[in-house]
Structures are given as structure tokens and as C-alpha cells.
């Protein structure tokens, strides 16, 4: 019975979003209602913050940001999806709702280039300092952009200044 209630509650209170249910309840929202939806879910006792990441869809020139949440009271998972254009990917940060979004948002910025407004310290986390690309975009080759035949000598200027890999 609780399942039906949750689905109904969501359908009634979020009229602007598309809601469906597969292995978990999936909510699709637009950029403007993203933060309000997540605030509403936090009030509905979705307290365990699981994941935040993104996918790049070059066919429609969009980046999709996905948030996974878990409720320890209702024992239900939920997924929130939001699409942003790839030229200017900006979204509000959910750091004030769940502190766990800290490093996940930094990683999404690093890998895909999505900027989160309101995040205290948005900088690169996994790639080396000085890296300028966003690796998980579909136009970045997985072997990287460094020519493989080149061997590096330690007196090479680029190595000393910490930028030898590009």
C-alpha cells in the first residue's frame, strides 16, 4: 500500500514532471524545477544520498544529470533526471540539502563540465592539474590526446612546470 501512496503523492505534487516506475521510480524534470523537486523529496524523508552523475547525449546536444536517492523509512529508491544543454551546462547545487553531494558534483564537473552554482569549492578531483578537457564527453578519445610515441625527459620544460601531459 505504501508504494501506491508514494507514487500517487508524487504524481499529485509534481505535475510538471514525468513520473514512471521501472525498477525504481523515475522522475524527469526540467532545469527550473530541479532544486524544488529535490527539496520536496528531502522533506518526504529521502535521507540516504546515493549518487550523482551525468551522461552526454551528443545526438540531442544535451547532458543529462541523474541523482539517486534512497529512503530508509519507506525502503524505496528514486531517480531524478534533468537535462541541460551542452554549451552552457549550469545547475543549482544540492550541497545544502545533502552534504554528500560535495565530491559527486566535483566529479561531474571534472568529467563532463557541468557547473553547479552554490557549491563551495568546485574544482577538479580526478584528472591531473592542468587538464583542460572533460573526459567523459563523447568527442574525447579514450586514449587521450597525447601522442604515444613521445618519450619525456625530466629536463623537459613542460615536465618541470607540471604541465607535461598536454
Amino acid at each position, binding site marked *: 500500500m505504501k508504494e501506491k501512496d508514494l507514487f500517487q503523492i508524487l504524481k499529485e505534487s509534481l505535475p510538471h514532471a514525468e513520473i514512471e516506475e521501472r*525498477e525504481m521510480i523515475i522522475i524527469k524534470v526540467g532545469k527550473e524545477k530541479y532544486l524544488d523537486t529535490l527539496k520536496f523529496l528531502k522533506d518526504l524523508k529521502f535521507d540516504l544520498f*546515493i549518487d550523482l552523475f551525468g551522461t552526454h547525449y551528443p545526438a540531442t546536444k544535451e547532458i543529462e544529470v541523474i541523482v539517486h536517492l534512497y529512503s530508509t523509512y519507506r525502503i524505496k529508491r528514486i531517480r531524478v533526471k534533468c537535462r541541460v544543454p551542452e554549451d552552457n551546462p549550469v545547475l543549482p547545487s544540492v550541497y545544502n540539502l545533502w552534504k554528500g553531494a560535495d565530491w559527486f558534483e566535483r566529479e561531474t564537473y571534472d568529467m563532463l563540465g557541468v557547473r553547479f552554482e552554490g557549491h563551495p569549492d568546485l574544482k577538479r578531483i580526478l*584528472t591531473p592539474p592542468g587538464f583542460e578537457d572533460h573526459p567523459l564527453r563523447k568527442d574525447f578519445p579514450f586514449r587521450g590526446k597525447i601522442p604515444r610515441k613521445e618519450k619525456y625527459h625530466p629536463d623537459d620544460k613542460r615536465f618541470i612546470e607540471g604541465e607535461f601531459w598536454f
Partner: protein
Amino acid sequence: MSSGSEMKEGRMIINIGPSHPSTHGAFRMITEIEGEVIINCEVEIGYVHRGVEKFAENLKYRQILPLTDRLNYVSAIMNNIGYVTALERYMKIDVPKKAQYIRVILNELSRISDHLTCIGPNVVDIGALTPFWYFFRERERIYEIIEMWTGARLTTSYPWVGGLWRDHPWIGGFKEEIPAEFEKKVRGFLKTMKSAIDDVEGLLTGNRIFIERTKGIGVMPAEKALEYGWTGPCLRASGVAWDLRKVEPYMCYEDFDFEVPVGENGDTYDRYLVRMEEIRQSMRIVEQAIDGLPEGPLMTSDPRVCFPPKKEVYSTIEGLIRQFELVMYDIQVPEGEFYYAVEAANGELGFYIVSDGTGKPYRFRIRPPCFAIYQAFPYLVKGLKIADLIAVLGSINIIAGELDR
């Protein structure tokens, strides 16, 4: 922490760098200390980032399996099982009971191995050297059992969608009996493990020095732990009874009778106690599994994933076509996206895969448990001393391969 910050007199910045005896993995901690008390701490990771998610977009599903077992390399089978059960739950493939029981045995042995690797070096940093030797002797026994089944000690790539590998060295063709040697080794291991655990508990649990070093250090209250995204033994030590094996049972865990230990305070001592108790509960599961091993095949006969028997391949045209397709084009995962998680040794390990109908995934995302746990580290160590920082770092069990992928 940036170069523009003002430093009062008496403050120092100490860099516990990527190459340090007590960092179990490669990550850097930059601490600002006054005297010996930590005022602020900043963490830098990414020294083992290999780009696994990007790499997996160019590989077939069968080729991704060895990538997954290099994530949490201390308990490699658990990562494999996470990936394989995700595919099975999506494609709705039934796995025969015998294969599930063997998977449970290997899974729990890996979990024991992971907890031993966490506790052993953790107490070495605090100053107790003997448990390290006892535990690593037991780990060698686990390696022998896993090597007997899968052929490799550390990086197995063993379970596959639908059961276990069909062409196992003992199981050539259609024979599927398990030799008596396996059962003897597992039971022998359970006996020696029990005596090792009792020895180490006697050495450490009531030890005055150990209690003073670890009680009240690195406390994490339950609500903050949930906010940060903690799962696994660290969350259970903070008081939340949350285990995916009980909440969302997968892979026949509902057949076994075991308990989930929950701590009280959320400090380092509780994390140690929760892990020790989990080792005992895992031993209980292994014993129940090996006592009640059912009969049956070791691999499903679902035509989407399973090779046809050789007689059919050589005599009928359908068998030949099926064999050809499975070898050349690998399994075909239908279009769609899905996310399924298992309870790995550190917490919730989840796989999110977007499939576009070709043999390669469009997006392969791994939800690492250590990532969420380690981001709370600056909160845990405020106000502690450097020696306490080392104790806390060992107790949250960071594996750099999982952190950076």
C-alpha cells in the same frame, strides 16, 4: 589552505603525501596543525584514476568483467558479482540454486578477506603487529580456496551471467560434481579462522591501550552519515541497521540465517567491533551454504547467454548458429537503462548501465562506496591529533582503486 590564507604563529602545514607508509593507497592529505591538534584538513585523490568508465564504452560486456575486479582489488569476487547480478536482474535470467550457493560461498570468503585486510594494517598503524601476521596467514588459506575454484588468487574474473563458467577444469563437458577436496578445505578453513579470530579478539578487544587509542575518536552521528551517503559497516557502526542483503535480498541470501551487527557510537572502536562480528556472521553463512549445497546444474540453459551442448552444435544448424552468435557478438543486452546495487565489503556498490542495443554499453557508471565515505574525512578529524588521524584513516577502509576508478 590556498597560498593566500593567513597563518597565525605556531601553525604548520603538514603534507601526508601520496607515498606514505600508513596511507593504504595513494591519496594525499594536507593538514593544518597547531601544536599537534588538527585545525583543518584537505584531501586530494585521483592518483590512481585510470578512466575505467570511459574505457568501458569501447568494450563488450564480457570484456568489462576483468575491469570490474580491479576496482576493489582486495575482494575481487564481490565486484564481479555486483556487475553480473546487475545484468541478470535486468535481463531477468534465472540462475540455478547450486550456482547461487557456490557464489555465496565465494562472496562471503571475499568479504572475510576484505575485513581482514582492513583490520590488519589498521592495528599495525596503531602499534599492534601480531594480528597482522595471524590475519595474513588466514588470507593465504582463502586465496588457496579461491584459486581452487577460479584459477587466480587476486583478480579472478569468474562469475558470468547465468551462473558460473561452464568450462571449469573439473567440469569439462557435462560433469558437474564438486570434488570432496573443496569441502574439506572450506571446513578446515572455518576451524582455523575461528581460532585466529578468538586469538585476536583476546589480544585487542579488552586491551586498555587499544581502547584508549580508539574510543571516542572519529565519531560520526547517524543523521550526518546518511547525509554524506555512507553505507556498509561504517554506517552500521553509527547505529543505522542497514544491509542490502536483508533489505533487498539478492542471490538467495534469504535462505540463510545471519544477523547484522549494529554499533552504538560511531567511533573507531565500533567500526572495529562491527567488522570483527561481520567476519563471524560470514563464517556462519559459509557453513550453512556448504552444509546445504543442493544438486543441479552450474549454469542456466537460457539461450540468450548459454552455449548449446556440443552434440547440438555439431548436428543441428540452430545450435551452430547460436554458438557462432554467442562467440562473435557476445550477449545482447536489450535497450534501456538500469541501476542495481549489491552489498560489497565497504558499502553499496552500484552499477548503472545505459545500453543502446549494440554489444557495447553507452554509459557505464560505477557507484563506489569509498568515495562517499572518504568525503566526510575532513569532518571526522577536526580537533584530533595526527596519531588519531592515522587510526581513523585505517578504520574507514579506503581502497584507492575503488575511489578513483
